[in-house]
């Protein structure tokens, strides 16, 4: 690129930046001295930002050339390495997760983050069935999370059922709602499906918010029972019939945290195991085939509606499990925990990780949720950092961290398939 072109290019970038910042940064309303709103103008900052964009763009184009910013979906150099390392990486991550509570220096705070990350990994894997494998864009996944959470909370409150009985019930109820939503909706495609699922997520939240007699509305449900260890409650009192008393150890609040950690660990592994197993079987292959080409599926005798419904129901079921776990961990739930932003975060994890990739989703959840917590000290800046990181990944790896697909079966050796060939699904 000639210098003149580079300058023009940078000027265009600066113009775009100006268009964005002129309103966002240039004008600001503040509370004035008399208590009314006053409009503050900050043209200096706008000029500064545009200048930074101009200089930055110029530096990128002249130093690195435009090539450095080419998007790629093919198995790039580092994904190829990741693929090879993936065989080791997945067991390594698993081993670390397994022994995490025993690692010295891992306290209650770290375990809490671990529980949070594992919850999102599980949600990511659950949504991955719907979005990654079946190619159905679901923007209302949080609805099933909410249904699971409220199922447990209400069943425990009204019928006194224990967590271990409610867990499967919560999954079944969420799956039931998944089917109920899926039945009329799955004939829609692409954008329409996304809009309807988005609306469904909001409807569930609004119902929870307004059906005060049942759900206690915005005040939420508190005092949700904690899970017991095969009937032994965790209690600081110790004594007969509690976890600590039965095993003859000093009662400690960390027992319950460790136990919860292993519960969500097992639930996440269950999700992963079922997904991996189904992927190698006709149902999973039919999901992927649907994502690739629905019309061809129909010509091969595949019932599109029921196949989509199974994906929807199964994804919803794991969302329901995760919701029940969330309720028992928090002991308090309210509709506020189930806003659209949760759906967006889970979807972002799936998309950033690579549609259909289990390891990719786990890494994305670890980086996004774990990183978000670790950098709490950065205050609002972390939003900017994560927004920036997401933009960079989407520019450089439009198909996510692991953009390749591994075949489910092979006559010879399984070779990864480049993301450019793999369909994304259109609903």
């Amino acid at each position, binding site marked *: 690129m000639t210098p003149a072109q580079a300058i023009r290019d940078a000027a265009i970038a600066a113009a775009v930046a100006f268009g964005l910042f002129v309103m966002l940064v240039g004008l600001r309303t503040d509370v004035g001295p008399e208590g009314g709103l006053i409009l503050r103008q900050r043209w200096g900052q706008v000029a500064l930002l545009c200048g930074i964009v101009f200089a930055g763009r110029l530096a990128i184009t002249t130093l690195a050339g435009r090539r450095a910013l080419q998007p790629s979906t093919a198995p790039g150099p580092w994904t190829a390495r990741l693929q090879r390392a993936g065989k080791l990486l997945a067991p390594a991550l698993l081993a670390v997760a397994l022994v995490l509570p025993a690692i010295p220096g891992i306290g209650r705070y770290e375990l809490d983050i671990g529980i949070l990350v594992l919850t999102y990994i599980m949600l990511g894997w659950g949504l991955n069935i719907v979005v990654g494998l079946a190619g159905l864009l679901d923007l209302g996944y949080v609805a099933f999370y909410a249904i699971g959470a409220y199922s447990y909370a209400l069943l425990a409150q009204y019928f006194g059922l224990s967590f271990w009985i409610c867990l499967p019930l919560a999954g079944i109820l969420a799956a039931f709602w998944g089917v109920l939503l899926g039945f009329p909706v799955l004939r829609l495609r692409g954008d329409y499906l996304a809009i309807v699922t988005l609306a469904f997520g909001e409807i569930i939240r609004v119902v929870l918010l307004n059906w005060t007699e049942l759900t206690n509305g915005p005040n939420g449900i508190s005092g949700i029972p904690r899970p017991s260890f095969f009937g032994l409650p965790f209690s600081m009192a110790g004594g007969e019939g509690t976890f600590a008393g039965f095993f003859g150890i000093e009662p400690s609040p960390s027992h319950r945290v460790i136990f919860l950690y292993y519960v969500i660990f097992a639930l996440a592994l269950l999700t992963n195991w079922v997904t991996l197993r*189904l992927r190698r079987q006709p149902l999973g292959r039919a999901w992927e*085939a649907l994502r690739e080409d629905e019309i061809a599926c129909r010509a*091969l005798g595949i019932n599109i509606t029921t196949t989509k419904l199974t994906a929807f129901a199964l994804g919803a079921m794991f969302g329901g499990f995760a919701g029940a776990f969330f309720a028992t961990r928090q002991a308090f739930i309210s509709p506020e925990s189930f806003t659209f932003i949760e759906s967006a975060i889970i979807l972002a994890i799936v998309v950033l990780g690579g549609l259909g990739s289990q390891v990719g989703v786990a890494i994305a959840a670890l980086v996004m949720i774990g990183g978000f917590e670790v950098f709490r000290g950065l205050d609002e800046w972390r939003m900017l950092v994560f927004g920036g990181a997401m933009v960079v990944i989407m520019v450089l790896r439009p198909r996510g961290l692991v953009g390749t697909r591994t075949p489910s*079966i092979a*006559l010879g050796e399984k070779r990864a*398939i480049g993301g450019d060939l793999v369909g994304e699904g259109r609903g």
Partner: protein
Amino acid sequence: MMPADEPPRVEEDGLTRKMTGDRRVHREMILEVANLTMRFGGLTAVSAVSFAASRGEITAVIGPNGAGKTTLFNCITGFYRPTGGAIRLHRANELPVDLHLLPGHRIARAGVARTFQNIRLFPGMTALENLLVAQHVKLMAATGFGIGAVLGLSRYPKAERQAVELARQWLSATNLLDRADDPAGALPYGAQRRLEIARAMCTEPALLCLDEPAAGLNPRESDELARLLLEIRGQGTSLLLIEHDMGVVMRISDRVVVLDHGKLIADAAPAAVQGDPKVIAAYLGEGDEDEEAEA
């Protein structure tokens, strides 16, 4: 599966003709199309078409562009619901099935497979996976509809081995065995066409409908295709073939149905169709349109 030493019938035109002539004496139909009409708004794409395809034969459907051939296929394979008329499948020793009343996915299960004018493979899945998806209905039943398979309680492993074996046979019949683990989207064009046929055959159909399978193939590939179609016929599958390559049509088909502007204008043996003035007129009329379209 296919006898390798079977004499290639492609070259022996006269002999093939005589054999098919004999066969027609006691022909039974596999597909019956009666008074089929398909309208799109004001446009009648297929207009009161009736014909029958015989079991164990290759029936070609030809006609100028826009004659309604693909629309006819879409009606037979359940992608369109016909405005009027009936389509019936007569499998050996079974009651006839009214295809025009079945939902789309049931038609493949009834025994009709198809390929598409614009190839529709699963590009991100390997050739082998494509052929396994084609055996979904059979395999799904063997897994106990997903539940048994997850729990590991089923006869699935055996069913999958058999499915892979069938896929392997069709891969080798279509000369794709060495590309089995390559993604379908990365195969060359001709290989994709063959893979689509192999995939359709993996549904073990009684009737195979091919929409312009030779389009875009070079002469050598067309010859191989013709041989493949004769092999498929030799195994007892009946074929319905839309094709523009007259060389292929005249060489391998047992009967030719000609459509023009949605109407059936001829239904006869290939040689008779070639000399039919109505058919010649239809194709001559199309000549200028083609040039206009290309210009």
